[in-house]
């Protein structure tokens, strides 16, 4: 499989007065035209991994890696200005809650048009037409009205579809979806995922799907990285996730309630300090 993104030995560090805190510790993986899931509990470093690829870790955080190669070019050697041409146009990201990730005082139209015109020298009329098409592609029925509306007038599901439209309009090669359905009602989660999946497939993009929902990831992704304390503890095919070997993954799976195996008490995850000491497993192919 063709490799779009190649991450080797990624570290995210936050220096503080008490010493350096490592949020991500030596993560390596490759991404092809596939759906790669990253799962883990809160604070396991999965979101940080996503943001580090875009080099959007805020100061005083530091991103270090042997390389983060996009089509063979190391993103770490790029200047901030060159990175801006990568963001949005080549790698984009959808975040958790559209209530917060859309600018509340700008119309949806102006935000989508802006995303397009940042990377395409198109006239306003062309950008407007393109935005309407994009909104239609994410199954929004009355795109003209939505273009004029403000984010607070949208429901969560609509907001997230708008986010997807906005992030895909410059035609990026890679989409990082950081818990894209966690803030949505269960009833619209699937709908949003299907739309995202369809667009990603049609365009032959690579998708990094960050989530804490094991079943969703097992269902939706091709491959899964399981992260714990900033490290990748296990890599497996998504459909084999339920046969995972690592005690942490097993523990997570066992702590989920199951309809077909009812039990009085759910198991509590027993953590082994050794897990956070063993080196990262490579997710490279």
């Amino acid at each position: 499989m063709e490799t779009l993104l190649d991450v080797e030995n990624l570290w995210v560090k936050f220096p503080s007065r008490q010493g350096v805190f490592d949020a991500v510790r030596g993560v390596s993986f490759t991404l092809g035209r596939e759906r790669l899931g990253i799962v883990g509990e809160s604070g396991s470093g999965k979101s940080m991994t996503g943001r580090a690829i875009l080099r959007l870790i805020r100061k005083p955080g530091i991103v270090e890696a042997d390389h983060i190669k996009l089509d063979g070019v190391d993103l770490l050697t790029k200047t901030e200005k060159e990175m801006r041409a990568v963001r949005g146009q080549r790698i984009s990201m959808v975040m958790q809650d559209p209530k917060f990730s859309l600018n509340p005082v700008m119309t949806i139209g102006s935000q989508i048009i802006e995303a397009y015109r940042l990377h395409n020298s198109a006239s306003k009329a062309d950008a407007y037409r393109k935005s309407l098409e994009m909104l239609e592609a994410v199954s929004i029925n009355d795109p003209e009205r939505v273009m004029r509306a403000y984010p607070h007038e949208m429901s969560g599901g609509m907001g997230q579809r708008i986010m997807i439209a906005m992030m895909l309009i410059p035609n990026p090669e890679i989409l990082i979806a950081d818990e894209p359905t966690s803030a949505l009602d269960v009833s619209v989660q699937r709908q949003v995922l299907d739309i995202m999946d369809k667009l990603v497939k049609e365009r032959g993009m690579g998708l990094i799907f960050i989530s804490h929902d094991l079943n969703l990831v097992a269902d939706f992704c091709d491959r899964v990285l399981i992260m714990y304390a900033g490290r990748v503890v296990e890599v497996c095919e998504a459909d084999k996730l339920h046969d995972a070997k690592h005690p942490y993954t097993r523990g997570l799976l066992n702590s989920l309630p199951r309809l077909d195996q009812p039990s009085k008490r759910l198991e509590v995850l027993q953590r082994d300090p050794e897990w956070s000491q063993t080196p990262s497993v490579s997710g490279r192919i």
Partner: protein
Amino acid sequence: MALTNESNEERPMRALFIDRIWPTLKVVISTIGSIAVTMLGLLFITFIIGRVMPIDPVLAIVGERASQAQYDEVYQQLGLDRPVIVQFLFYIWDVLHLDFGISVLNARPVSEDIARVFPATLELATIGIIIGIVTGVPLGVLAAVNKGTWIDQIARLVALIGYSMPIFWLGLIGLLVFYGILGWVGGPGRVGIFYVDVVPSVTGLILVDALLDGNWDVFKSAFSHIVLPASLLGYYSLAYISRMTRSFMLEQLSAEYVTTARVKGMSEWNVVWKHAFKNIRVQLITVIALSYAGLLEGSVLTEIIFSWPGIGSYITTALLSADMNAVLGGTVVVGLIFILLNVLSDMLYKIFDPRAK
């Protein structure tokens, strides 16, 4: 929907009225209504103050050696023999006709005095707040964007000096350095002594009057006189505005939509000014309106040091000489300004924040 059985010509007119004109009209009516109610409350308070003050308004006019007959005559002229509620209604009637009574200090109508001193304060406060905004807002944004760096520290220091230096000291030192030693600016007063009353007073704002008259010499003189006191007031506003801008901005810069803008590939300048700044406008308006209202009240110390005949020193002088008509008249004007600025900032909210509609 319900209008389908009406004739075609009637419908658009009626729809236009219901959709467009009526909501606007409703806003206008409710705004005027709220101004009127607040104003009534203010007048009630000033009226009560006027009654409970241990100053006999009749004695203040006739003097202590007047005969009982003279005293009674003035007592009746002032309407003090009528019931209090009637007096209050007369008071409202007078204020609506811009009649605040006669100043006992100079025997002139208070409204004329206020019409003379208020423009002086308005001119000073307006230039002061403009200086405060154009320096304070960028300084606050700069400090927020560079949080924790030396730029932030310098911005903090600049604001701290503004907060803590007494204005009379800064004013005197400013006069000494820029007027006395360097001679860059004009001294005390609104305009050079040769230019007093040279241009006809149209608005009462000397800068505007000079422009209307086309008299550049007067304009230059007035400008050189206003620069120093306005900069001082501007500096004080800067201290407050820049600190508030910084904290509003920090809150916005950590919001998710800012990350979205960065993910789109936007430059940091546009992230800050096109995205984050748009979200602090509403909060900034409140801060600026409050600062401006504070300046319009008249900054007594600045006005005294710079011999600026403004409303602050006017009310203070009146208060010290127990000239109640002048004090209450000034209070009503200052109160009205607060009310109007509040209404104005409410209207600006609705323009800048789509959620407030």
